[in-house]
């Protein structure tokens, strides 16, 4: 084995959110484009460096109209990074991917005079916590990027807990526990009975296969040290 291969960093998946402008065209497309041009004319280059999501749900158009629309938008320097509500058969190689489940946010269109405030670290502010008092069932996903998640009950196979900080499970962990998703390496995972399919802290993943079998069925905690997953039985 070469040294390069030995020193290869583990691949990490991190989440990051961006604000995208959503364009929802209306029929007839010609008139809508004319209106868009009028708006874009008022603030030159508005779309040049902005991510744009094209929302075509409830728009009765064909695949051909759709590809033409993408091309027309491209000519106007509007680069579509994702499409919402398109027929899956329209999309494919060389076309933007399908997206869904976006949250509504106001886009404030004015330049800010003040430099953005530096982001506060997790250590500097109180950590909110979410308490779940029922078992988390297969297919359910608890997402709480703000802080800790505590579950009084079990997390089933095929269920997942995603927390910005630590995950505490007073029961069996049979599904996935993902802690520190917002880039918090100090987050930990605690559970009463460890049967997990996957655990992750700050984007560092370990599947059940990679975890020492001696922890199965035990009360354990997991944490990161030097970018490595550590686990220990809780006495």
């Amino acid at each position, binding site marked *: 084995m070469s040294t390069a291969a030995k020193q290869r960093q583990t691949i990490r998946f991190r989440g990051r959110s961006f604000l995208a402008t959503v364009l929802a065209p209306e029929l007839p497309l010609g008139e809508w484009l004319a209106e868009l041009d009028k708006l874009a004319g008022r603030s030159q280059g508005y779309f040049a460096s902005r991510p744009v999501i094209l929302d075509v749900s409830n728009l009765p158009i064909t695949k051909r109209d759709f590809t033409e629309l993408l091309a027309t938008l491209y000519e106007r320097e509007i680069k579509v990074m994702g499409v919402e509500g398109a027929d899956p058969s329209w999309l494919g190689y060389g076309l933007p991917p399908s997206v869904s489940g976006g949250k509504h946010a106001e886009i404030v269109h004015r330049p800010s005079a003040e430099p953005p405030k530096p982001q506060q670290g997790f250590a500097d502010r109180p950590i909110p916590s979410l308490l779940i008092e*029922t*078992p988390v*069932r*297969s*297919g*359910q996903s608890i997402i709480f990027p703000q802080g800790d998640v505590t579950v009084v*009950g*079990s997390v*089933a*196979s*095929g*269920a997942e807990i995603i927390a910005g900080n630590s995950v505490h499970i007073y029961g*069996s962990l*049979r599904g996935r526990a993902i802690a520190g998703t917002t880039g918090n390496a100090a987050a930990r995972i605690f559970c009463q009975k460890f049967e997990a399919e996957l655990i992750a802290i700050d984007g560092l993943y370990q599947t059940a296969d990679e975890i020492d079998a001696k922890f199965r069925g035990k009360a354990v905690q997991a944490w990161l040290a030097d970018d490595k997953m550590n686990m220990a039985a809780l006495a």
Partner: protein
Amino acid sequence: MSQVLVVTSGKGGVGKTTSTAALGAALALGGNRVAVVDFDVGLRNLDLVMGAERRVVYDLINVVQGEAKLQQALIRDKRLETLYLLPASQTRDKDALTSEGVARVMEELRDSFDWIVCDSPAGIERGALLAMRHADVAVVVTNPEVSSVRDSDRIIGMLDAKTEKAERGEYMEKHLLLTRYDAARAERGQMLKVDDVLEILSIPLLGIIPESDAVLNASNVGSPVTLAAAESAPARAYLDAARRLEGDVVPMIIPADKRVGLMGKLFGRRAA
């Protein structure tokens, strides 16, 4: 007060239809007026298990769409006069079931029956959601096997989120019915044990139905097992489960078919 019961599971082939028929008949034997409703539109089976397939004229979809009256579609059982079947349509698809239409039919059924037992289709799609939507109580049918247990867990999550009762913020009553249970295989570790399943699903146990030929035989002659072979082990387990649904406290035992002696076993095996 009438109760709407949904028999559901997520996974197919675990015994929903068999259990619907057996529990429906058991409740009717106890003197209740019972309607069993087949929600498995396009793949109807309950009429066969109830032995009513040759008497189907109108079905659930006809009633939902207002093409027939409820009284015209209900088929009265030949053996028990308080047991009725509302069959599913074999020729239409699930999209023909409208949410408002199903709500109206359920209300109408509540007026004339003590128990309305809904046989859910497999899966977690529209058909299964409509079948559970108006239920007061759910029976989750599970085999002692990992994939069935996980699918049941998924369905329990949906019962807690997508039923009218759950949406009103009320507690959705759920019971576990463990079917096709083979004590010998569970002992040898070839099947999940009862305690393992209960620990994973954490809902109360309604009954344990032992694996038995009596179930298949009953289906083949078109009769709920609780009527065709009332003395068989699965029938006794279903009759106990029905009593528990009515609120009776019945000790939980796993009924067994008559023991075959050692010699019988040896010879039986040799003959087979």
